[in-house]
């Protein structure tokens, strides 16, 4: 078992080079630059089993145990007990697991936790109910069962960052990645417009 201390000092008994190679240069660069994640080692082998990584979630560094196959969604839900992001579809087609990573909306069930090392991740739990998007959702009653709502709130938050002055037409065109079975769309549209009127991202 690798301890967090070992990981922090780059003394783990394995390498994540194979993983890094497969997961894109940006992640590798962050990790190698001594970012908060796992330090890379010279020798090449495949990671297996449990290992501890550090995720930058809601402005804090969190150590979390993952397997290479652990998705970001599982790491958040089981590792950090941040259960706002929901498991709804096998892929990203419901938008229910949406978080904001590097400023962009991401289906957390479609990325591996290890890919997210060194990237700032924002989850719905970082928001409070008395302002911004969640407040507008409450005010317009834009949740019923509420299971889709955290994903929607994050999708809207990311959308409004890009389109702070969104029109109703843009809202109807731009928020189709999220699914709601209870049918809250008619309440979400005015909620998003309220946030726009209140000054973009509230």
């Amino acid at each position, binding site marked *: 078992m690798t301890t967090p201390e070992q990981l922090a000092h780059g003394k783990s008994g394995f390498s994540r080079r194979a993983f890094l190679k497969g997961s894109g240069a940006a992640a590798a660069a962050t990790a190698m630059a001594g970012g908060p994640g796992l330090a890379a080692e010279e020798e090449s082998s495949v990671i297996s089993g449990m290992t501890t990584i550090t995720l930058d979630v809601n402005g804090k560094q969190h150590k979390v145990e993952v397997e290479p196959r652990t998705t970001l969604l599982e790491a958040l839900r089981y590792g950090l007990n941040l259960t706002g992001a929901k498991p709804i579809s096998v*892929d990203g087609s419901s938008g229910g697991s949406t978080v904001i990573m590097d400023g962009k909306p991401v289906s957390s069930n479609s990325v591996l936790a290890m890919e997210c090392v060194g990237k700032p991740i924002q989850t719905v*739990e970082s928001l409070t109910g008395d302002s911004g998007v969640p407040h507008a959702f409450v005010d317009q009653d834009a949740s019923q069962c509420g299971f889709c709502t*955290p994903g929607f709130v994050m999708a809207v938050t990311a959308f409004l960052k890009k389109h702070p002055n969104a029109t109703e037409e843009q809202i109807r065109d731009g928020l189709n990645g999220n699914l709601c079975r209870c049918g809250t769309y008619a309440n979400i549209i005015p909620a998003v417009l309220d946030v726009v009127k209140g000054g973009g991202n509230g």
Partner: protein
Amino acid sequence: MVEYVWPDKKDASVLGGSFDKIDGPAKCTGTAKYSYDINPEGVLIARAYGCPQAHCKLKSLDLELAEGVPGVVAVRKMKELGDEIHWQGDLVAVVVGETEGAVAEGLAAIVADYEPLDVYVDDEDLQAAEAAGRTADSGGRVQLANEPEGDDEGFEDKELERLFKEAAAVVEGYYGIAAITHMCLETHGSTCEFKDGKLLAHLSTQNVSGTPGQFASPLKLTADDVTVHCDYIGGGFGSKFAVDRWDSLAAQLSKDLGRPVKLMLDRDLELKNGGSRPSGFADVKIGADANGVITVWDSHHWSAGGYGGGVLNQSVMPYVIVPPNYRRRVTNVKINAAPVRAWRAPNHPQGCALSQTAIDDIAAKMGLDSYDVFERNLVNVADEDRRGVYAEEMKIAAKLMDWKAKWHPHGKGDKNGSIVSGLGMALHTWGGGAHPSSCMVKIHPDGGVEAFLGSQDLGTGTRTVIAVVLAETFGLPVEAIKVNIGNSKYPMSGPSGGSTTVGGVSESSRRTGLDAREQLFEKVASKLGVPAESLEAKDGRIFSSEDSDKSLSWKDACSLLGMSPLEVSGRGYSRGSKLSSNGVGGVQMAEVEVDRETGVVKMKKFVAVQDMGLVVNRKTASSQIYGAMIMGIAYALFEERLMDKNSGAFLNAEIADYRLPRLGDIGELVVEIYEPESERARGVIGLGEPPVISPGAAISNAVANALGIRVPVLPLTPKRVLDSLKLQARSA
């Protein structure tokens, strides 16, 4: 003597107002915990393995490899060798492990072999079903205004023939509505904690009070050893009333393994097992007089309820508009699919879609305005009291839609390139009487108020409804009431089905609140030296209506309770109650645009006018109607269960493949709650289901009005629209 009534509209402070859901912030910031979200220390993850075949016998099942996967803790079979399996995805085994990854690997390592049996899944093709020996007569009914003279054997046929001959217009049509699933976004399942001979089950359920016993008996416990807990449920729609076999297994596994076990279905198995709504297909012959009033109806419908499930009930054919003469017949088509479950307003959406489309076809055939034909047919509404309500609701809806200005005869509208537009309407009914419910109210000496009910919140805002009722009763703001629901140890409340919850909890919390208030009033009366009957509670004060100088703040009044809280229990009595009633109606009108080249139907505007007796919380009531309209748009235009005819495979059992409307698909929605004093005086009536009934017929009628032909089967996908247009072109 306490009189259990609601205040008049002019006297009500909060009742009927518009309030945010008190649990809205929890839902919108991700802190609301659903069964899926509960992760007790050491929780194990369990996932099920579904049978890949649609009809077979289990020949062999080798779990050894799965058991050997690192991280897998246990593997259990759910079927025995030789068991017959009747639908694809029926659960065969369960793998329990430390992580999702280990469990997934374990599931992939299960080796099973099956002996295939004959598969049949085509519920629409009645001839094929008959040829396959998959049909059964499911009864019917005949009602004729005339009596046979003497012993006239063939009277029924002769009389129907005579009536159709006499009719000014006759339409013979074929109509259908495909099977759909519930698609709860939180799949079915539970997180079970068995400890010291007791079970705590975090179950995703519409039936908190009714499920402990179902968990108890397979565990050889009694219900008092079981607590069912569900603060939030991610969708139910009628499919989550029972402890399912996989929930019982989760409880057993927790007992055997000594650790909490979370067993939620994954999406694919959810759609295959977690509930579907029966399809319906019908041959309908309908006759009308010169005004378009239906005089005679003859229908045969067939429907598939899945293995052991019930078919589309005959009682909804014809629907709401029931002529004096009718004959109906039902055939059950037995397909290899999981048994159906109650789906929001069971039977009604299909009945409406199969019969009010036929009524609209009479209007088309006679060249009449559909509005006029529906209005004239209100004489065929069985409940005379409701005819006037429908007439009023139609007027309001027509105004909101601007029906008269927009109307054109079927198929005769302006064309904008390949785009044509049309209007359609439908109307519906539902019961929605209060279910049994008990409530416990605690008033603390410091003024705090709590309510406890073993109820649940499907998303309708149950907590807020209870808070509004008690706030009204005690003269307090809504946020002053702390509502506790979602635990089976609280006083019993009925399952949330049939739109009975808001009526039920309003009944129990109003009665209990009034009882508690009376006890408090007695203490205040002796303190102030006024008769208790003269006291009122409003704006945070208790005062005498005879002398308003004699008053106490709520807090000071509560301090009279001494050291211990006042605890009062009570229950609802819906029979003969002035607080609740049943029987609602509604009218919906749809405006669509259809592209004749692509077959795409677009919602332009959709109007719903709905009565529900007395409105408790206007905001959440409106949301229910919006949601129901969107769910209606879903089954009218998008969703259906697709099955492969040869293998019986459920082809679209993932969200990416199961088409549902998205935010951009809904057009403009307009909701109007019809609450004149005559309706308000009836008391609270449930609302969750009724507005989901009319959309299928209303939207289909709008498409028929646009195109001038009927696209017979819902959902009206581009393919179905284009097929109908091709058929029309060929026959022209």
